[in-house]
């Protein structure tokens, strides 16, 4: 069967009242949140994060020569072979507590063209190189929702002003950005409610919007502004946390700023500080119980060149790293088979060789969190994926 035509049919299938053959182990009590208690947060790191600098293979004998300037600052030892970029240093307690993990030498199936645009398309569509970029119109996280019974709009949130194609598709999803304002006088709001009263579409959307903006305004401002330059992250994470503690189980958003062609030392630190803040704040805002049921996966469109370039940066590459956090993961470990950095071991003699499909990690997470069948994950959510043996990333 042609893969694409199969995918097209899925939306219809997901909406029908027919039995859901996807669910193998999970039975849901009526009225319970569709996905049980487990939370999944997916962060798209736009711009191609340099996995080799974030999780540095200090034990690889070729590493230092490839990265004469980038290997200079001290890194924090993780396991005797890999070391953590110092800008993620505040995450070390999570590493020690088993709540932080990495996958290395991983990538999407995207190869050779090294375009951000196409690479992100593929990452979010969850397809392989056999499907033209943009040909599959829904994202893999939406296709997962299409297969789950009892999903409501509240189940999944795409957060931020930027589109999150990862969550786009026929399954209902809410979009919201904590930056959204909706300022009206009390009288103005009353009148608007009257004007919308007989139009359910406008009325319901407006009520929801009022609720969401009020929830945002109710948070103490002082706390959010404490750390300069990170207030937007705090607002975003706080919003996500409030929803995740309530009925939301899936949240997705993106962090930009990873395209470090020059002065990577400074540029990457800035972006890692934001990622670190995202994770720490999420843990803090979710509280121990919910954090204990949470899996955070931060993935990027591709890695960067093994060699640093002439401007103390790196260029578009292939294999990279994924960051995982949360109380639900088996942390304190760098997952993946290390291919080495000798010239012969590199992809195209220039990039880290991917040894595992990043989609496989996500698929195993979905299977572990929501009991999804591997046949359906491989055929439909990630068409063409071979999940392989479970890497055991979840507790």
């Amino acid at each position, binding site marked *: 069967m042609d893969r*694409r035509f199969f995918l*097209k049919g899925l939306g219809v299938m997901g909406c029908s009242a027919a039995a859901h053959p996807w669910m193998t182990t999970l039975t849901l009590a009526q009225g319970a949140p569709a996905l049980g208690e487990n939370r999944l947060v997916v962060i798209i790191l736009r711009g191609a994060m340099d996995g080799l600098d974030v999780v540095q293979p200090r034990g690889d004998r070729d590493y230092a020569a490839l990265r004469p300037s980038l290997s200079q600052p001290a890194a924090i030892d993780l396991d005797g072979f890999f070391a953590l970029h110092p800008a993620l240093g505040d995450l070390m307690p999570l590493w020690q507590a088993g709540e932080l993990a990495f996958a290395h030498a991983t990538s999407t199936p995207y190869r050779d063209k090294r375009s951000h645009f196409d690479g992100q398309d593929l990452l979010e569509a969850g397809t392989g190189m056999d499907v033209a970029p943009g040909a599959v119109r829904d994202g893999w996280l939406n296709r997962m929702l299409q297969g789950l019974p009892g999903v409501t709009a509240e189940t999944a949130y795409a957060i931020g002003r930027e589109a999150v194609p990862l969550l786009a598709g026929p399954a209902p999803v*809410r*979009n919201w950005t904590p930056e959204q304002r909706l300022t009206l006088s009390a*009288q103005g709001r009353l009148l608007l409610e009257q004007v919308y009263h007989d139009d359910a579409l*406008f009325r319901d*959307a407006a009520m929801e*919007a009022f609720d969401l903006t009020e929830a945002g305004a109710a948070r103490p401002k002082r706390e959010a502004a404490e750390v300069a330059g990170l207030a937007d992250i705090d607002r975003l994470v706080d919003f996500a946390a409030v929803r995740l503690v309530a009925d939301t189980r899936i949240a997705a958003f993106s962090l930009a700023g990873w395209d470090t062609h020059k002065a990577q030392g400074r540029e990457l630190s800035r972006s890692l500080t934001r990622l670190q803040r995202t994770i720490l704040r999420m843990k803090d805002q979710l509280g121990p119980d919910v954090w204990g049921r949470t899996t955070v996966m931060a993935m990027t469109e591709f890695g960067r060149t093994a060699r640093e370039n002439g401007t103390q940066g790196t260029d578009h590459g292939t294999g990279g790293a994924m960051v995982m956090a949360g109380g639900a993961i088996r942390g304190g470990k760098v997952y993946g088979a290390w291919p080495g950095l000798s010239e012969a071991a590199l992809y195209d003699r220039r990039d880290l060789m991917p040894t595992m499909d990043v989609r496989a990690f996500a698929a195993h997470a979905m299977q572990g969190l929501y009991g999804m069948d591997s046949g359906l994950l491989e055929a439909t959510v990630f068409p063409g994926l071979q999940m392989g043996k479970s890497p055991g990333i979840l507790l």
Partner: protein
Amino acid sequence: MTDTTAAFRFGFGLPLPEGAPTTPEAMMAALRGPDLAAQTHFGGGGMVELLPLMENMRLARIEYKKNPDKKGAGKAERRAVQATHAMATVFMRATIARAVDSPDGLRERLAAFWADHFTTVSRSKLDRALPGSLMEDAIRPNLTGRFAALLQAVTLHPAMLIYLDQVNSIGPTSTRGKRRGKGLNENLARELMELHTLGVGSAYTQADVREMAELLTGLTFVGDKGFAFDQSRVEPGPDQVLGVSYDGKGLDPIKAALTDLARHPDTVRHVSGKLATHFVADTPDAGLVEALVAAWQDSDGDLGMVTQALLTHPAVWQAPPAKARQPFEFLVAGLRALGISGADVVAMPDKEFTNYIAGRLRDMGQPWHGAGGPDGWPEAAEAWINPQRLASRITWAMEVPARLVDPLPDPRDFAARALGDRASEVLMVAAGRAESLREGVGLVLASPEFNRR
């Protein structure tokens, strides 16, 4: 049949610009006549102007990459990029200005419809102004011509060839393919069948897509020439698409296949259905779609005749205004109702244009030339009126008019001016009770009456 229906369904609302036609006959006459708005506002932006800018930019980038330290190389590159951006911005402002001012609103709405049907999106600095050039070169000249002519103009245009990767498609056994080990890219071939003509789920197979991709090899873009046909990329041999064999040299077999696709019954039904959906209802009247199909078949795809059939069908004038105005329509209608002219939009300082218009389009979910994929913008009202996007509309309605208009009009007068006989009693009362002119005007612009068509 009322002027209000004509203004909302086929234009950008009230008040109608001076001289605006409101009967189907007069609307068709205007559409078939000269494009008057192109004479008042910038009517360019096609490849003729764009090509030298793109080529300058390409050369400046090569120069900069070769000699990054050479004095002025970086500056020259930035200047070249800015020139292309400036063209894209001028085009955007002009498109809004034309929609605000033009008495021939139908022309502007049709141009937007076809630009969406044939969506292109810029993916790099180099092609920032390409989607505009597609509208100018391929769409606007073909609004009342044959669909086959429109399809051909769009398919052979650099904007489409670049966006859907045709420029990277090389016949695997062509001269060039054998030498370089390169292969086919099926993107354009697939979207051509799935989106532009036959429609998803119609009777074509993956084999048809592949054969179509082989047939399309040779179409490309060359920096100093624009559109080009490169024989060295052509996959040799005949190609069998939907049971018809196409063979021969040059563009002729490609044009023949496009003509056949344009005429295919699935295409006729798919595109007729889209027209009815866009202009009339998310689930259009079946009789209306049949009427468009019949007009298409009787005229061999004359889009003037199809449009006329749309304008003259009774269902079009009876259907309730249940569709949501897309953000572009909402903003244009809002500016017009506030008395802001196209010239005002063109003269607006950059910062204000970004803060009040371009950025707001993005907030409302429709960034300029920024659709998420080649399938373009959604039609369903629910896609546009959700909490976040409606909040952005309300915020625009409450904040921006006071920054653009001084003094603001009386809200009840404004409601009558912007909505004609559509203003409900509830809205008129609410507009009168608002505690400020600002919120009164905002209520009108945020109302379902103003946001639906």
